[in-house]
Structure formats: structure tokens, C-alpha cells
């Protein structure tokens, strides 16, 4: 019973970064918008490029290409605005994508211990095996600071 429940088709948005495709659960997507001016100001959060203004809201732009495909991509076709959860709070975050996006229904299979934290699962589509992204793990947030503090603490504790 449980296995069949997990394999029920769900909606996903397929996005393209360079030559690769990734998926995000459709219920985590707010909208897809054309690129607009990115406002930049000094800060120290590496993955954040700046912010865009969208319907009166200020939305951070998070470049995830380096994490996902190993290099920065300078062309961008759209911003996929995803909902990022921080505990009970949720905020929009704009992810630059380089090609068309597509809405599909597919069955997601679970992750294995060797998968990166940003992998929420896998799905098969058009002969490709596609990573389903965990937006909360992929984009920066207060957890990043806690993880860094733990790493620093571990380093300091070493003899």
C-alpha cells in the first residue's frame, strides 16, 4: 500500500541548466518570469546574486548552476520562482534557468544514502533520469550558518 502511494504520479516542473535538466515539485513553484533587472548590493552569501522586484516583493536571486552543473551559466531565459521554507516561514527565491520549462506528471523514486542533500528524489522522463531538487537544501538559509559553525567547531576542536 505504502509503496504504491509513493509511486503515484505527481506534477513536476522540468527546468534546464545548460545541457542538463532538473525537476522541482510543481507545488514548490510560484511562477515563471522573464529575466528582469537584478539589483546588487554588498553581502557575504555566496550563492545569492542580488534581488529582483516582482509584484512589489523583493525576491533574492540564487544561482544554483555552480552547485548543479559545476559552472556558472551567464545566459538565462527565465527565473523560476520557487517557494523556499525556513521552518514555518516560507519565502520566494528566484532560480535562473537557461531554457524552456515544462510541466509533467511522473512518479518519483526515493533517494539513496549516496545522493547529495539537494536531491529530493529521481524521476524518469523521455529516456532521461532526472534529479528532483530539494529547494530547501539547495538554496542558502540559516541552516548554512549552523552547519558552518559546526564545521568550525569541529576544526577548532581538532588537536
Amino acid at each position: 500500500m505504502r509503496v504504491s502511494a509513493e509511486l503515484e504520479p505527481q506534477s513536476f516542473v522540468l527546468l534546464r541548466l545548460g545541457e542538463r535538466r532538473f525537476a522541482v515539485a510543481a507545488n514548490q513553484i510560484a511562477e515563471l518570469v522573464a529575466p528582469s533587472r537584478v539589483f546588487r548590493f554588498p553581502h557575504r552569501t555566496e550563492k545569492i546574486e542580488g534581488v529582483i522586484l516582482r509584484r512589489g516583493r523583493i525576491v533574492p536571486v540564487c544561482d544554483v548552476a555552480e552547485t548543479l552543473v559545476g559552472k556558472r551559466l551567464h545566459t538565462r531565459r527565465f527565473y523560476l520562482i520557487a517557494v523556499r521554507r525556513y521552518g514555518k516561514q516560507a519565502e520566494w527565491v528566484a532560480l535562473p534557468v537557461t531554457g524552456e520549462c515544462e510541466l509533467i506528471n511522473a512518479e518519483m523514486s526515493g533517494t539513496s544514502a549516496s545522493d547529495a542533500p539537494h536531491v529530493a528524489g529521481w524521476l524518469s522522463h523521455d529516456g532521461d533520469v532526472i534529479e528532483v531538487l530539494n529547494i530547501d537544501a539547495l538554496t542558502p538559509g540559516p541552516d548554512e550558518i549552523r552547519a558552518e559553525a559546526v564545521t568550525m567547531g569541529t576544526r577548532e576542536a581538532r588537536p
Partner: protein
Amino acid sequence: MPPAPAKPGPAREEQIILFRISGQHFAVSSASVQEVRSVDSMSGLTAEITAPGLRKVRHVVQRGDRSLFIVNGAAHFGLAPSPGALIFVLRKTRTALLVDGIEKMTSMTRLQALPLSFCHEERRWYRGLTALDQTVVPVVQPEGFLSADELALLDAAMPPPPERVAENGGQNAVENDVEGMESAT
């Protein structure tokens, strides 16, 4: 019959100063700025200070019984070096902020909290972001320029009292209080 939703009250305005450092725009609440002075007017009133590992503060000025540390805004934010032309004395802090110039005085009606994706030092630097004339400007936090640790470092590096330069009461200084500037602009 369900109660009618409460009507939103009039948006509360906050007076702000839009200023520049190394070509980057920032805003600060006018209420946080005690004085705006030209760098020239402060020459001769400052003493040099060197705190190890803290390059953003090179000068200190004695104001009555308190020492104000002059923070180079460009060095604080990691921007391209800039000589700075004006100094904002920030109320209720020990910071005087060196900036390039004032763009304008205006008001904001909405301050959006810094998105949680920004998760490093910038959370101390800014009160939030505001949209002004179709651009987004960070609104600085006056207390965010010097942490308690940095203040302790600076206090420890203070020059001995006889060498401190006392202020001459602003006799020769071009001192502008913020309200005065506002009416002039």
C-alpha cells in the same frame, strides 16, 4: 455576518537619507543620523588608530566624553576603495560613517525584512530592503558597523589620553544637522 476586514491604516513614512559609497546606494533612517559633516571640517580633530585586523577604522574623534570611531564605508562593505567626503555621526552608537556623498533625502513607506536567503554578516549590516523609484536599496543598521568585539579591539587600541585631540566645539566646522539639510535640499 462576518466582520468586515480591517481597513489598512495609512502607510507609515520614515524619512531616510539616500547616500553613496563607491557608486553603491544605501539608505539610512534620518532619525539615526545625529550630524552630517564634511571630511574637511573634521581634519585636525581626529587621531589615528590602528586595531589589528580591523582596517575599516583608521581614525577616532573625541566628542565630549565619548570616542567616535570613523568607519570607512567602502572597507566595511568590501567595495572599491573610496576617499569619502562626508561623515555621518550615527546616533546612539560609537560610529561615524565615512561616505562619498548624499544622493537625496526622501521617505520610504515599506521596509521589507532582508530575505532569509541572506544568511551571513549582511544580516547585521541591514535593517532590510526598500524599493525606491523602481530600484532596491538596502537600509543600513547603525549598530551594524561595529560589533562588540570590534569595539573592544578599538578601545584597546585607543591612543593614550594626552595625545587625543579634543574637539573645538565645531567653531570651524561646517556642521549640518539633518533637519537643516532637509530644508536646504
